[in-house]
């Protein structure tokens, strides 16, 4: 029959969905990969240029921004820095020198302590990663379960209640919640102190690696950091699922006699995880910067706290290094999450293009 066109070559008609295995040739894939890599590199370069621009604006100029003007810096050290970073040469050469040494992990010296910036940062990475992973996993787990449940019970009183609560909660500054929680715990804690640790990542008495100790220290910072993020993602998951539940395949799946559990988790869940991942990747930079206030409040020895304390002392080498590193992390994770979302949602994307494209 004339109408069975699916066997035709992939691109025979504009906008007609086609076989992706036969359709996308390897050459096209390789080209796409190269283009994607190039565009990430371009973006990173722009971030580096912007950071370098900030260095020029810092009081004291690039020399200060690399740690050459702290009290202990000798004449010899300044000369060494000038030589190493070509500070007496034109700006584009300086940029090149800075970029090259940054790529090797050399960001200059702290203005306050005089030690290499890379060392300071290295010591702070692990606590920040711990806190980030805790916040991210708690928020995603709660948002996923609660969001799907709310979507299934759209319009019910629980739905309305959670929507109101999260609507307010997503606008509260995290540090404010943190400060008030510490206040309440201290006030109610009695003579033996608050029931949960309110500062740092480990107890003074502890020795070696104590997981229990780490967890008890993690609870409050995680709670505070996750409140805002979770409130937002509960709404996101709920809205995505409410939309997906309108789709016909949900009716078909129910009519087949599948359980609600399976309809929601397998059919709906599969279709919203892609868009959700894409959104989370895009939000990553703001989640990262949100860590600063949380770490500061709870004296969590992470990068955020280092950033805050270094900024307060105008320790620019540290601040700039953290800025450019987190920018790089953000861009790479954004791209990866989008890639993952695309990979999961290939079918979905083709629906969209089939709807908008073609005749």
């Amino acid at each position, binding site marked *: *029959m*004339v*109408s*069975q*066109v*699916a*066997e035709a*070559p*992939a*691109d*025979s*008609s*504009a906008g*007609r*969905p*086609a*076989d*992706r295995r036969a*359709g*996308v*040739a390897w050459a*096209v894939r390789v080209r796409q990969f190269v283009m994607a890599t190039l565009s990430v590199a371009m973006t990173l370069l722009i971030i580096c240029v912007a950071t370098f621009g900030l260095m020029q604006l810092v009081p004291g100029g690039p020399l200060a921004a690399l740690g050459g003007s702290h009290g202990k810096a000798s004449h010899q050290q300044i000369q060494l820095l000038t030589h190493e970073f070509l500070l007496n040469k034109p700006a584009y050469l300086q940029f090149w020198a800075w970029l090259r040494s940054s790529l090797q992990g050399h960001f200059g010296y702290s203005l306050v302590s005089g030690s290499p910036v890379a060392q300071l940062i290295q010591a702070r990475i692990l606590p920040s990663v711990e806190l980030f992973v805790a916040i991210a996993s708690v928020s995603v787990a709660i948002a996923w379960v609660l969001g799907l449940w709310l979507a299934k019970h*759209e*319009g019910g009183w629980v739905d309305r209640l959670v929507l109101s609560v999260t609507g307010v909660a997503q606008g509260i500054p995290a540090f404010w919640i943190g400060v008030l929680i510490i206040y309440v715990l201290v006030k109610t804690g009695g003579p033996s102190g608050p029931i949960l640790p309110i500062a740092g990542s480990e107890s003074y008495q502890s020795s070696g690696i104590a997981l229990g100790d780490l967890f008890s220290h993690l609870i409050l910072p995680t709670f505070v950091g996750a409140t805002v993020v979770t409130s937002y993602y509960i709404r996101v998951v709920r809205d995505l699922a409410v939309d997906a539940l309108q*789709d*016909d*395949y949900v*009716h*078909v*799946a*129910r*009519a*087949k*006699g*599948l*359980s609600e559990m*399976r309809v929601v988790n*397998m*059919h709906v869940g*599969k*279709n919203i995880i*892609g868009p959700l991942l894409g959104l989370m990747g895009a939000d990553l930079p703001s989640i990262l910067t949100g860590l600063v206030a949380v770490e500061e409040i709870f004296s969590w020895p992470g990068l955020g706290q280092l950033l805050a304390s270094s900024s307060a002392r105008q320790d620019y080498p540290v601040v700039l290094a953290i800025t450019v590193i987190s920018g790089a992390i953000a861009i790479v994770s954004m791209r990866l999450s989008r890639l993952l979302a695309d990979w*999961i*949602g*290939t*079918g*979905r994307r*083709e*629906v969209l293009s*089939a*709807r908008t494209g*073609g*005749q």
Partner: protein
Amino acid sequence: MRRPGPRLAAATLEAPDAREVLSATGITVQFAGHPAPVVAVNDVSLSLAEGRCLGIVGQSGSGKSALCRYLAGLPPRPGERRAGRILVTGQEPAAMRSSQRRKFLGTTVGLVLQESGTGLNPLMTCGKQLTEHLVLNLGLSRAVALQQAAELLEKLGLPDVGRVLAAYPLQLSGGMRQRVVLAIALSASPRLLIADEATTGLDVTIQAQVLRLLREQQRERNMSLLVVSHDLRVVSYLADEIMVMHSAQVVEHGSTEAILSAPTAEYTSRLLAASGLSGEQPGLLETLPPVATLARHNGAAAAVQDAPAPPAGPVLEVGDLAVRYVTRAGATVDAVAGVSYHIAPGECLALVGESGSGKTSTALAMLGLVARSGGVIRVAGQETGAMDGSRLRRFRREIHLMAQDSRGAFNPRWTVEQVVTEPLRLRGERVATPNGWSVARALQEVTLDPALSSRKIRTLSGGQVQRVALARALSLEPRVLVLDEPLASSDVIVQRQLIDLLTRIRIARGMAILLISHDLAVVQSIADRVMVMYKGNIVEEGPSEAVFASPQHDYTIELLTSAALARETEPDPEPLAPAGEAGAVS
């Protein structure tokens, strides 16, 4: 879910001797609304015996889908309230425990929905979707279930079954997807199949295939079929009995023959006439204002006409028009491969073909809205390639395109008056011109109430927006009106009215029409000449009567037989004749 106690059946038809598979009494569905709840289904009762087919027909929005969802045991939407009693094979699902109900309905009732692109989960292979419920609910092994699915798909005439099972839905064409949906519905060997607009949105040839399959399967399995559609032709092809729904209520119920030959409800007669299924032509033409009031206002119009056109020659000539797209993968596609045609003043030429055949590209390229890769276009003997900005703009007013999607063509926040007067304001003309043009008269000409002029576009119905688009187009006094699927989105009664309106305006104004459509019924009733387009080429061309009476090309024949399928079982030998005559009256 709120269920009142059992109540008396309002109007159950007497079931024949066979067993009753579905019985529903007092079905009422309401949606929460502002200020009052909206009643989608009002006290509907029906019953369906084994092996029989009941059709429900009604306009979109008449509550058919809400009824289907309820009958199929799908949970209510937020804000949906239901009442009534449903028995399936004598058992009451509402009285069962939820897991029991789920399994019972899942194996007893199958559901086929409109091919919308979301009928199948886009992220699951067809094989998985065909088998998961068999594995979970019937305890089959995956291999056995897959084997069964493959056999079923083969029976439904799908080629290369292994590939289909491994494919994701969007790697298949719309027709193949709809057959997979049908296979899912049939996979648990249901006693009852509910088909809600199962063929709507499919091309006419595929629609015919799916309809044939539905009938075959129903007879082979001695299954009951509840077929629901806005299209009376589809319903009458399948159904033994028909229920006509209008404004949430059943207005008529009877055997298919009785409904088609002697409708009692006024709405049914209108529906029949509009679908081209009745001998009598209701007084649609008479309900419109007299032609005299539509006499074209002259002045500016006369000036346009005086200018270059030799009145006898074609108003528009297109020679060897070609459009070539380059896909993202780098391949070139000839959407239009060298098409030539011409239109005389006052003539109606139709361009027919399925979606993807290049009809729309032809129109867009002719107007310069997409780049053409070759060809010549002459308006009244003048070549458009040589035109510069302002003359090109004037050319576009003379050959005016009315878009497929009228609603998308306007700012939904603008008022009708703003939309209709925009072209004239652009020309710097006063809105009430000396020669008597006014918004009110323009709206009257397209049979719209002049009081609508202050309404916002988004508050109008689809049919009304189309008329606004027409009024706006006519204000420019075009010589050729290009209509791209003007009727695709409206239901039959609105279609009929618009066809009549277009015909009258064409005759009154001496304006030519280029009609692009996939709907042969529409084309036959309005066009003087027909061109059939297939894969970028015009495969057949000729006077309307000739093409429809003795088609030459295989593809034309297939198109015509597919469209005629719905009339196979129908008593009236020449069902479309009245409509055709209406188009030819002049």
